[in-house]
């Protein structure tokens, strides 16, 4: 018998990821939110629904997510909700780009890593190309929601 070694997986399933998966933050809904979007990965059925409210200065005031899917997609959504609180729409867009850079393997500055906070735990996804879509689903959904919101302004 072989042993199924999961050493390689500790990079993917970091403590932070599994904690967010098991204890998701800001899970729920917001009635008539300013920004809302649903993301769906047709390949695996992962789903993330995001809702944001903005304050007078157009900063994220309240945020919630719902949906279902694997640990990576749901943890990524949970981390997102914590990160974007208090941010302007431009700042959230930057975070989304930073995640893509991280997964792409780009060199990031200390300041950028600082901004990313717990999102850095998604770095391990890079070695599992098929799971990159899972990690990006919530952020791509947010980008879509913001684009639609700004288009309607």
């Amino acid at each position, binding site marked *: *018998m*072989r*042993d*199924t*070694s*999961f050493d*390689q*997986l500790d990079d*993917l*399933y970091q*403590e932070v990821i*599994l*904690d967010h*998966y*098991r*204890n998701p933050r800001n899970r729920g809904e917001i009635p008539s939110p300013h920004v809302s979007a649903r993301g769906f990965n047709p*390949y*695996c*059925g*992962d*789903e993330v629904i995001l809702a944001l409210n903005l304050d007078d200065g157009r900063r994220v005031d309240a945020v919630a997510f719902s949906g*279902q*899917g*694997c*640990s*990576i*997609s749901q943890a990524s959504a949970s981390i997102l909700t914590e990160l974007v609180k208090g941010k302007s729409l431009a700042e959230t867009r930057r975070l989304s780009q930073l995640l893509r850079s991280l997964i792409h393997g780009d060199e990031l500055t200390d300041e950028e890593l600082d901004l990313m906070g717990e999102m850095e735990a998604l770095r391990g996804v890079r070695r*599992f190309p*098929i*799971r990159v879509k*899972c990690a990006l689903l919530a952020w791509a959904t947010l980008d879509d929601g913001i684009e639609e919101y700004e288009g309607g302004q």
Partner: protein
Amino acid sequence: MTLDVEKIRRDFPILSKLVYGKPLVYLDNAATSQKPRQVIQALVDYYEGYNANVHRGVHALSMESTERYEEARRKVAGFIGAPSPENLIFVRNTTEGINLAASSWGAANIGPGDEILVTEMEHHSNLVPWQRLAKAKGARMRFIPVTEEGTLDLSDLDTLLNHRTKLVAMTHMSNVLGAINPVKDIGAKAHAVGARILIDAAQSVPHMPVNVQDLDCDFLAFSSHKMLGPTGIGGLYVRSETLEKMEPFLTGGEMVLEVTYDYATWNDLPMRFEAGTPNIAGSIGLGAAVDYLESLGMEQVHRRERELTAYALDTLKELSEEFNFYGPTDLNARGAIVSFNSPDIHPHDLGTMLDQGGIAIRAGHHCAMPLIRDRLGVAATARASFYIYNTKDEVDLLKAALKDALRYFSKTLAPK
């Protein structure tokens, strides 16, 4: 006589591959099968020895490729019990076969108020073409429901089938549940109300004896790549009297007899439905796959897989507290597919973990979203599917890996 699995395994070069340093355990056969060297060699022989276009050259190579291409058609038609090679149209895959039937036959024969009856366990390929046709024509889709156990609920069949039913389109074997459906009985009832029957045989033709005359079906579609053959080729069987009346699907070269600037006349069957240069190598490769399966005997293949499925269900039963298993328990009504799900590990995570052990399974909705979401009530399942080269040892490895994965996830996910 039983199959010599060790000998069979030696015919499949990929089975000696290491994945992350571990021998490959390939349990994703419902998605696509592996290929024996006899099939691979047939492709090499074609490209190295007689590559030429078919049906139009007077030179030696073209005559040889034409002869081999039509020989493949005879083999494949014979394999599914078609009365004549003319009943077999080469298509890209099951999906294209069904689309051909929907476009050529469906568009001409289904109208406003007509009904198309399908089952709730269809693959998207046998659902979406009919949805689109029904919308375009003002026809109505109706569904044979699926029971809790994962078989068809036929209690209302006599109401579902009525004089408005023009077509029953159903899968022979579910790619999610493994359920083998009584297509012959349903087909007889469909014919009794004047409807035609189309069988999606993508999962049955590779794994059990299938005879279109015995099933008495009007259309039957299948794919080469799930039955040891190359990708990009498959077959659509159409009953003669239906085929003769059907308008072409695609038009252009090869499917015409005479062309002027103003009009064209159609070629004989089945070329009328094969516009453009066909997948010559693929067809010949499929013919080689049919030779391989026939050398084993489809009865033997089916028996061997039933034995392996029985072993798998029995072995995995030990995990029935952690996993839900889907599909019929009656081994006579199911093929070598086992779908399962755990509330503790998402199938996607499970797939990644098993992959680390060199075990290839499928995780997702298996192109049957309505069945998975609305009937099984989950977003995705994990699926192990077997073929002639799989072994009981591999089933044991699957069970051990599932246990390891559960342990890993429960350790790392222990509530704080």
